[in-house]
């Protein structure tokens, strides 16, 4: 490929790529994000290529593995261009039919199109599916049309024109001004204004400065950064180079967790391609600006998502946070000014430069501008990645986009902000999402994880879960975090096991307060949030565990027992056959009884008991009724008697 030396040459190359791409030519776009790959997308791609070849269509029809489409629940997702027909949960065995019927015969395969689970209403185009219809996909939308391993795909959509504009038509100060004007706030955690951070570094003394991509997305249940980096790596690189120009940095780092192998792979390819085209290296686009990028793979430590810890890790040390009385924007990697933003923040930068700050600020609320990607997971019908304007209500995200709670269960809470965030109850569903709005109710935006919980989720257990996570992920340097979390976890574990005591809540509150004041870094200071927010909104659950030794959500293993209602059991043997610990006594025509001392409470019987019987129940806070006498267990079936 030719090295591009000026904005004019870039435009010429872009036109050439566009003219070569026949827009009317049919193309099969298959989501090749990690989620769909896990559901078998690689096999589907292979099947399409083979089938198209077999049917002699290879010249007329293209196939492309693209970035993540976001609708992970119904993956693998396949979209057929130019009609934009969308098929969901496609299996390799569906492929011959799709090729014959839809690609050749322009006929829709009804069973593969979206059908609403509640109403049965169908939608054959991606844009008509409620999950997509209610989103505004500025950042993640391009994923669908791009092969992440092709820089030309990105350029065909206007990629790197923002870089050209920034380097050749704007001064560094003007770029900085545009970002400041856009009010872009960091999408990785606290929501610090990006422009202010850049300015701080720009004005800091020193010749060598750094710009860094934080792709160490560690919040469990959040994967939007992975999807952007994996699905559209050039958008992140372009943002980073523009940032380097604005800040006055010639060196960029991408800190990406090695648990994201596909993201690392696509990123490495993207850097190579961008270097060949001359978007990285010396004298970029003839502007005189030099910039290079180094990839640092993270070796697995949640704390490295914290800026100073991440920078310590880049220096090749154990990722312990440093006190930030002097901002990392002034003293960061090797004590040099270092700007750190997460993947999604960087990916917004080219959009703002290309379309202007005024375009960006028309979306969102007064203090939170633009869109935000959320990963909507847990007890939700449409698990996936959702991009909506800031200010959208939780209710709209969860019910309009997310399709509500599966199995007719009742919504209980949404957890946002990862381990530093909190749980928001049903009464606050009309809250408009934004940085300050979420903080005000005791949670936070974080990187955008949204875990939906239903009535079967125990909120004390959720707090215990996060403290357990943090006890393992704390770096262990300072006392209030290491010891405070350890003691909090012990108390919470005791409560969930029925060993809670009066005074436990107060003890927890005091440990939480001290960690909040005294811990060295944000991980420790926010560690108590999952406890504090669940206590604030679900105190009665804590009290039920402590006083009545009862788990109201029937979730805590030590506080529940499984019981087969003899009046409902039809002795079908489904549960007794599947019980992994052989704890169910019963047989053909003999009502089943759980031997409580053998039961490991794995819940298999509860899950497999046919819903028409519903004989297995959970009991908490009350004794298990004694087993019925042997002679009463025999079922005489009327039909057999005749």
């Amino acid at each position, binding site marked *: 490929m030719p090295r591009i030396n000026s904005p004019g040459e870039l435009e010429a190359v872009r036109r050439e790529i566009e003219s070569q791409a026949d827009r009317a030519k049919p193309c099969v776009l298959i989501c090749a994000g990690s989620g769909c790959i896990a559901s078998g997308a690689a096999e589907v791609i292979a099947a399409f290529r083979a089938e198209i070849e077999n049917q002699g269509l290879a010249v007329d029809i293209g196939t492309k593995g693209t970035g993540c489409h976001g609708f992970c629940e119904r993956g693998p997702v396949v979209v057929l261009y130019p009609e934009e027909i969308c098929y969901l949960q496609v299996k390799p065995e569906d492929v011959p039919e799709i090729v014959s019927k839809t690609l050749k015969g322009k006929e829709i395969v009804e069973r593969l199109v979206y059908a609403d689970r509640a109403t049965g209403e169908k939608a054959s185009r991606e844009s008509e599916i409620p999950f997509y219809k209610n989103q505004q996909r500025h950042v993640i939308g391009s994923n669908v049309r791009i092969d992440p391993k092709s820089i030309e795909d990105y350029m065909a959509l206007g990629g790197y024109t923002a870089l050209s504009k920034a380097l050749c038509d704007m001064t560094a100060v003007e770029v900085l001004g545009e970002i400041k004007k856009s009010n872009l706030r960091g999408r990785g955690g606290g929501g610090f204004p990006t422009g202010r951070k850049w300015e701080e570094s720009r004005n800091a003394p020193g010749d060598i400065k750094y710009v860094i991509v934080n792709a160490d997305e560690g919040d469990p249940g959040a994967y939007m950064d992975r999807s952007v980096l994996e699905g559209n790596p050039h958008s992140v690189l372009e943002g980073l180079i523009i940032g380097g120009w604005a800040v006055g940095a010639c060196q960029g780092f991408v800190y990406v967790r090695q648990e994201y192998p596909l993201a690392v792979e696509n990123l490495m390819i993207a850097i190579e391609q961008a270097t060949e085209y001359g978007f990285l290296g010396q004298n970029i686009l003839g502007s005189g600006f030099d910039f290079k990028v180094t990839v640092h793979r993270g070796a*697995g430590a949640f704390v490295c998502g914290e800026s100073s810890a991440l920078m310590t*890790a880049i220096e*090749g040390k154990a990722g312990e946070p440093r006190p930030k009385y002097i901002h990392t924007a002034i003293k960061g990697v090797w004590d040099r000014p270092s700007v750190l933003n997460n993947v999604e923040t960087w990916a917004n930068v080219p959009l703002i430069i290309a379309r202007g700050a005024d375009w960006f600020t028309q979306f969102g609320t007064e203090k939170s501008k633009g869109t935000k990607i959320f990963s909507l997971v847990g007890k939700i019908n449409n698990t996936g990645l959702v991009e909506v304007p800031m200010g959208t209500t939780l209710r709209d995200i969860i019910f309009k986009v997310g399709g509500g709670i599966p199995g007719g269960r009742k919504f209980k809470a949404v*957890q946002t902000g990862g381990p530093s965030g909190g749980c928001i109850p049903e009464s606050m569903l009309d809250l408009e999402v934004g940085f300050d709005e979420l903080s005000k109710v005791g949670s936070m935006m974080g990187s955008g994880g949204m875990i939906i*919980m239903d009535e079967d989720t125990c909120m004390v257990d*959720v707090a215990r879960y*996060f403290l357990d996570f943090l006890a393992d*992920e704390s770096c262990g340097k300072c006392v209030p975090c290491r010891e405070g979390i350890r003691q909090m976890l012990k108390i919470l574990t005791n409560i969930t096991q029925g060993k809670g005591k009066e005074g436990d809540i107060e003890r927890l509150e005091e440990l939480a307060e001290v960690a909040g004041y005294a811990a060295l870094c944000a991980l420790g200071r926010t560690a108590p949030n999952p406890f504090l927010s669940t206590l604030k909104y679900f105190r009665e659950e804590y009290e039920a565990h402590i006083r009545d030794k009862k788990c109201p959500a029937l979730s805590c293993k030590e506080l529940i027992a499984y019981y087969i209602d003899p009046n409902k059991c039809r002795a079908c043997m489904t549960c007794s056959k599947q019980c*992994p610990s052989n704890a169910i006594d019963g047989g053909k025509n003999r009502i089943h009884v759980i031997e409580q001392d053998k039961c*490991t409470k794995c819940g298999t019987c509860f899950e497999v008991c046919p819903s028409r019987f519903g004989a297995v129940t959970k009991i908490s806070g009350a004794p298990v009724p004694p087993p019925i006498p042997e002679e009463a267990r025999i079922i005489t079936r009327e039909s057999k008697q005749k």
Partner: protein
Amino acid sequence: MDKEQIDKIVAKYHGEPSALIQILLDIQSENRWLPGEALQMVAEALDVPLTRIQHIATFYKAFSLVPKGRHEIHICMGTACHVRGASRVLDTVEGHTGIKPGETDLDMKFSLETVNCLGCCALGPVIEIDGKPHGRMAPAKALEVLKNYE
């Protein structure tokens, strides 16, 4: 791992001490664990104290200082999997294999680890065996999956 292999990896990073974590990751991925002699060799090649290497090798989750079994089981304990019952899956797998997270069984068949999110939340609870994800797990289903590994 012999010295030649280590030197090759170190050379890839120009013997730069700041690349220590990258070098250890490469050794881990080639060898599947970090033998003590390898750490000693890296310390000498980069001229960094062994204490720093020891800290890194125990601080980050990617590294193992003991050999791994033939099959590596990763059970996702991300929040989405947790609320969908991942801990019950973990309990069952622990019971079946007789090992706890971080351990390898005596036959060197399985190594068990918990991970904090594989990012396949739609498929939760997820377990990953030798890199292959198995979705929508339940205790009994997980045991079925494990039977396929020798």
